[in-house]
């Protein structure tokens, strides 16, 4: 899905902060794109944005926390790092609860910022991989017929063929045919593989 290196997206209304942080991050050979407001970021956002986003909490118009919530609404899965003038505890708790990765206090040191960015990149990679797997799993599962889904659902719960046959009111033999088709369509090697795919596709139940 992503064919480019991760990027740090900075959203801060303060030009000197944007400029200095950009210099600092670029010095570590990481690409940076900066935005002067939440609105500017949202209108520039593309589905292939990959990396992490550093958001200043205190901004005019839409502030950092509001931007974070908007990103969740739009299903933008970029890991979020907050920057704040003074990190009061209730605010940081709120931010972490809504899923922010970290909460950094200004002025921030190079070491802390880069460490934070690197772990955000790892998280980003994980999120992208998960999304890809899910996409893949959904595509596989989409190929199944209604009956095959029913059989699969019982199989991944641990029912043996005999039980599945009794439950669905079909013959033992028919269950075997359905199962082999399921394995072939999803490209699963064994039952464990099938369980993984259904979980990735959120069809585990």
């Amino acid at each position: 899905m992503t064919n480019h290196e991760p990027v740090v997206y900075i959203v801060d209304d303060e030009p000197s902060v944007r400029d200095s942080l950009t210099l600092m991050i670029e010095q570590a050979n990481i690409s940076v794109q900066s935005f002067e407001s939440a609105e500017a970021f949202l209108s520039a956002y593309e589905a292939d944005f990959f990396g992490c986003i550093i958001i200043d909490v205190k901004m005019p118009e839409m502030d950092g926390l509001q931007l974070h919530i908007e990103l969740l609404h739009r299903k933008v899965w970029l890991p979020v790092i907050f920057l704040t003038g003074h990190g009061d505890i209730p605010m940081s708790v709120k931010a972490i609860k809504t899923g922010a990765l970290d909460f950094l206090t200004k002025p921030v040191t190079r070491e802390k910022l880069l460490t934070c960015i690197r772990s955000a990149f790892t998280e980003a990679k994980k999120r992208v991989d998960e999304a890809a797997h899910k996409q893949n799993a959904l595509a596989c599962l989409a190929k199944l017929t209604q009956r095959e889904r029913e059989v699969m659902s019982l199989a991944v719960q641990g029912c043996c063929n005999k039980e599945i046959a009794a439950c669905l009111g079909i013959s033992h033999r028919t269950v075997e045919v359905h199962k082999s088709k399921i394995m072939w369509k999803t490209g699963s090697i064994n039952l464990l593989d099938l369980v993984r795919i259904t979980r990735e596709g959120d069809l585990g139940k």
Partner: protein
Amino acid sequence: MDGLTNLSFRALFDAAVEAKLLVDASGRIVLANPAVQLLLGYSEDEICEVTIEMLMPAKYCEQHRHYRAFFSNNPEKRTMGNGKALTALCRDGTEIMLDISLSPIKTQGQLYVLITFIATDQRFKAEEALRASEERLRLAKQAAGLGIFDCDCKNKIIYWDEQMRRLWGQDSDDPVAYDEFLSVIHPEDRAARKAAYNHAIDPTGNGEYSAEFRVIHAASGIERWIVTIGRVHFEAGHAMRLVGVAQDVTEQKHLQKKLQEQRDETESFFKQQVATRTASAIAHELNQPLTAISAYSEVILHALNNEEIDSDKLKGALEGCIAQAQRAGRSLHELLAFLQKSEIKTEQLNLNDVICEALSIAENDGYGGFHKILNLQPDLPAVQGNRTQVQKVLVNLFRNAVEAMRIASVPTATISISVGTLAKANMASVIVQDNGPSLDKDLAKQIFEPFFTTKPSGIGMGLAISRALIEANGGQLWLDPDLNTGTRFRFTLPFAI
């Protein structure tokens, strides 16, 4: 004189002011003087038709016949009723109260009784009215819980009523000596009470006595708040008596204290909010440039460490540092200018008055109870300043002093306030000194810094604000160093021109 001895019984009888009757042994009235006719409303002819029993309410008649028989056998001069007033029946049926006395007169073998009536009705009514009024007073006293005292200023003896003794927690109803009376008063309140007393007995004053103090009951150790008011009676320029009332106001005091605590809490919360907001504004203004400076510097340092010298980039970063440091400084100045923006309205102030007002504000705020030594200067020229702000500074100084002395449990907390002139600077000066603990040097250095406090509940803005206020009024506030005991603050204000 000879003429007088011949004065007839009848003439004397008729001339008497008291109402008189002469009754024979059977109880029949034989003579009635004009006074008795007037008193009972009978004519002379009519009254001589009746018996003595007809002149009293029917219920007494039977008993009276026995008394009359007894008197006939034991005739002697006496009063009736054992000191109690008796009732007589007038012709029109009304009853009047009388004292009655009997004098037996024997003449020509016959026993007559001379009866003298003294109408006690008026006296009786007055007594009744007095009793009722005393009763009303007693009930009012009881309802208000008022104790009454009467102090003999000369002999230093105090007479007191039951309630007063109860207020003092004592049983004996003997008068008490003045010293004993005072010994119950809370030691911290004695000086203030003494001052009120001295003020009251001053012959040049109006004699009004008003004091508020705590008494500690000797037996139980219970502490009660007492308010007392009274008035001194002077004779020939000397205070003779102080009569007054006292009331227990402990409950009101507790309520007041609670309300005050709530007000303090609100105020302290409000101040905290202001401090937080101010700090947060400062943090925001400074954090942005600091963030940039820190990041630029680290970029430069990292570049130098790794010998990745791109001189244009480094120059840019350094210029960024300078610009941001300059900006931070400007922000601070702007912030201070903003905080001090509200223009001060000054007026000509009598510093002596402002001090007295501030003292009463402090007392009302629950920071009273200290002994005051006032060295005011009534002739001091007016100073130029903002009344509320100068008051605020004084109240804050008193408050700090009282709190410090309370924490240190100073036995007789004293604050002395002196007004003077700094001649060379053309300034008025005020010294506020307490006898609490003295400040050590390290503490003294920090004491004016914002957010510095030694109090658990303080936010440490009091002295910082006080200093700022005095400076805004054109004066200075400082702490006199190197005192062995107590803390001495001094501030100046410019004279009005």
